């Protein structure tokens, strides 16, 4: 096995192990996601028809916010104990290592959000026919959120007020994913053909997968200076 594949495997295993040993870190964004979605019926009243129309947007916006909250975990701990500098010094391309860390981050935040979303959909009175679309749209969209978020997290690494700053940098960039993710679910409810939504979400994923690791690696090098 070539050296860097081995390094990827090690890094992925390490990130997952470290995160699972501190499971509150993994659970907090998930609980946040559930609480935020549950607040909307309290604020708007339990009218099923109203909840059904706002459900796609609410669930997607909550997913955006939950991902954003988890972003500082992506590099901050490794930065604090110097692991990140060792990674930057290693012979393996930093871009690939960043991509691996993003993959671990998605498995720990994006994937749980996807898995819990049907429950919230039931809570929000989403018709069963839209359930599959919601899960699929989140499955395509959340990796983009993690990838773009990695750029923001790398840029704000070690800055004062980094947590609020990262939201300022990242949330405007999330808008296309939100539009097409929530649009796909709303489209299914309205009976519109949503193939284009999925094509575009997949295109965003392909674009983010190819470009975001480069930007995040470059940003890390600036932050580690």
């Amino acid at each position, binding site marked *: 096995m070539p050296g860097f594949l081995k390094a990827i495997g090690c890094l992925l295993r390490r990130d997952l192990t470290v995160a699972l040993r501190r499971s509150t870190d993994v659970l907090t964004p998930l609980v946040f996601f559930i609480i935020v979605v549950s607040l909307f019926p309290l604020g708007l009243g339990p009218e099923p028809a109203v909840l059904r129309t706002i459900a796609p947007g609410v669930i997607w916006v909550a997913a955006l916010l939950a991902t954003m909250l988890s972003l500082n975990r992506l590099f901050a701990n490794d930065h604090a104990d110097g692991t990140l500098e060792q990674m930057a010094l290693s012979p393996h391309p930093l871009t690939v290592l960043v991509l691996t860390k993003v993959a671990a981050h998605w498995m720990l935040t994006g994937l749980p959000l996807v898995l819990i979303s049907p429950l919230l959909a039931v809570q929000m009175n989403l018709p069963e026919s839209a359930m599959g679309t919601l899960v699929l749209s989140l499955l395509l969209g959340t990796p983009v959120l993690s990838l773009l978020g990695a750029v923001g997290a790398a840029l704000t690494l070690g800055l004062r007020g980094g947590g609020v700053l990262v939201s300022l940098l990242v949330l*405007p960039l999330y808008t296309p994913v939100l539009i097409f993710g929530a649009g796909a679910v709303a489209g299914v409810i309205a009976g519109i053909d949503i193939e284009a939504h999925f094509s575009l979400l997949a295109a965003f994923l392909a674009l983010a997968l190819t470009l975001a690791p480069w930007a995040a690696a470059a940003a890390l090098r600036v932050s580690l200076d």
Partner: protein
Amino acid sequence: MQYMHKYASPKFFYTLAGQLTPWMAALTALLLVAGLYLGLFVAPVDYQQGESYRIMFIHVPAAWMSMFIYVCMAGAGAIALVWNVKLFEMFAGNCAPVGASFTFLALVTGSLWGKPMWGAWWAWDARLTSELILFFLYIGYMALQASIDDPRRAARAAAILALVGVVNIPVIHFSVEWWNTLHQPASVSKIGTPSIHPSMIAPLLLMAFAFTFYFVAVVLLRMRNEILERERHTTWVADMLESTKP
């Protein structure tokens, strides 16, 4: 490359910018007066929108500038990242507040225009919404720049953000446009008619050039300030201050 080194030296640029600024300011004033005169007094009244369409002569050039400046900022940032030229770092950094102001101007005039057109101060029109997101991008850029103390590090981080943003802007723009057609009947957002009378084009272009020269003049002024601040410990700044003392 050797020319670039000569012109890109802060000392040389400081004097050059000092000589250029009055010309740019004069051009701005001239074009602004001509553009406003043609736009507000000479251009005919629109048969559909009456007099209120005249806000277009501010709104449209401001919206153009907001995007143009972002692209300039990202381009200068890329040059600064690749060749490590201080001058381009300063240029990119000083573009942001001017660009954000133009974006804000476009938003305010758009909203003022919206009141007689749509009957509301704010409508989620596609172009207005993407201007709003562009405004958020500018704010993020300036916030990132402000939170890093070392100016060189700040410039490099901000340049990466601008490059990510410039890739995203077309994506955001087309997403918002799609979203808009999905949620609103097309007749509402039809604010700029496709065919435009030539007597309206002239003031529009004049205003666009006026705004461009204004942008150049203000950025040159801001860069001169920043050069003085960054180079305050060098001998040439000390010499210059000495010679200007009464």
